[in-house]
């Protein structure tokens, strides 16, 4: 049986609606922020119309699955209703907590990486999979702060959870780059520590360097989704395609400072080229392996 092909798509933004629909033959899928469609049935039904044009993937940002605290079931119930309306290809969430003790952080925060959050996250994933009737693919987050009370490194902590919950990984390469830049790690070496057999989806985005508020000699890489995908992220994508045994679904994210749609098409093409070059190297390695055995 032929392997499933790699796929390439964009995050859905109203600014790009016309461009995406006019070029639907070049775009394999769109990723929808699920949270924007949970509270209004008529808006949710618009997704049914969109999903008739293109495969869609739902991306959740406010469940807070990665926590020692239990996920709120009313949020999962709403998501399950959205699934009934638009039958998505897949859905994803983050390795993040977003609230605790009644305090809404309003964004993705890194929890302490320890046994309690491993156990809590696994329970939350199982509950989510039961209510939504499908397990989420989980995404690594960018964090500007090293989470205190952590007894695991980032990738070991995620690996424990992915294995125990049998989940796929959404690998955000700019998040990986940002965390490496801010912790002094090498992104290429870190990529090799990723559980590559779990990677199903890839996010590409951009960010910017920001000044340290207290130390003029230090700077931090902010993942803001407001800038084009940098060259190094395409290099990481190419390496990933070389190493990954699975078909990849690659999504380019953009949350603002929107360039012309042509620029997004160019970035999609660069992503296709990066994956193609990585796949070609992978094929070459496989062809060379039997010859080496005979030497």
């Amino acid at each position, binding site marked *: 049986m032929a392997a499933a092909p790699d796929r390439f798509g964009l995050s859905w933004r109203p600014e790009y609606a016309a461009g995406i629909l006019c070029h639907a033959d070049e775009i394999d899928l769109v990723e929808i922020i699920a949270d924007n469609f949970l509270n209004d049935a008529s808006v949710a039904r618009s997704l049914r119309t969109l999903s008739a044009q293109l495969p869609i993937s739902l991306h959740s940002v406010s469940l807070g699955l990665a926590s*020692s605290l239990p996920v709120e079931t009313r949020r999962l119930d709403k998501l399950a209703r959205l699934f009934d309306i638009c039958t998505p290809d897949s859905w994803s969430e983050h390795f993040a907590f977003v609230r605790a*003790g009644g305090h*809404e952080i309003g964004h993705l925060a890194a929890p*302490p990486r320890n046994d*309690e959050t491993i156990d809590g996250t696994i329970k939350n994933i199982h509950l989510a999979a039961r209510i939504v009737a499908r397990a989420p693919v989980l995404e690594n987050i960018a964090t500007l*702060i090293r989470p*205190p*009370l952590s007894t695991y490194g980032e990738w070991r902590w995620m690996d424990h959870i992915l294995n125990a919950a049998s989940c796929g990984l959404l690998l955000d390469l700019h998040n990986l780059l940002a965390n490496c830049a801010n912790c002094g790690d090498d992104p290429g070496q870190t990529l090799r520590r990723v559980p590559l057999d779990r990677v199903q989806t890839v996010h590409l985005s951009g960010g910017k360097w920001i000044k340290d508020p207290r130390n003029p000699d230090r700077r931090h890489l*902010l993942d803001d989704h407001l800038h084009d995908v940098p060259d190094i992220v395409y290099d990481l994508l190419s390496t990933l395609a070389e190493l990954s045994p699975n078909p990849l679904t690659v999504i380019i994210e953009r949350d603002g400072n929107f360039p012309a749609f042509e620029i997004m098409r160019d970035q999609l093409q660069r992503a296709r080229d990066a994956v193609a070059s990585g796949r070609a190297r992978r094929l070459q390695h496989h062809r060379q392996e039997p010859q080496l055995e005979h030497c």
Partner: protein
Amino acid sequence: MSTADVETFLARLYTDEDLRARFLRSPDEVLSREPLSAQQRSALAAIDPSELILAADSHGHKRTSRRRR
């Protein structure tokens, strides 16, 4: 005193500007009033101040832009 207490304290630090300012001035004093273990207090006191400021700013910016939408 579980990780849930630490998550709650972190969520407060990110969202409560006054608490954050007091914590940055005197972490030990703020932490002494929290229902946390000595190990948890010590780990929280070791948070890099720059990283806390940047993370809180980033979360605050996202909260504000979400409210505007």
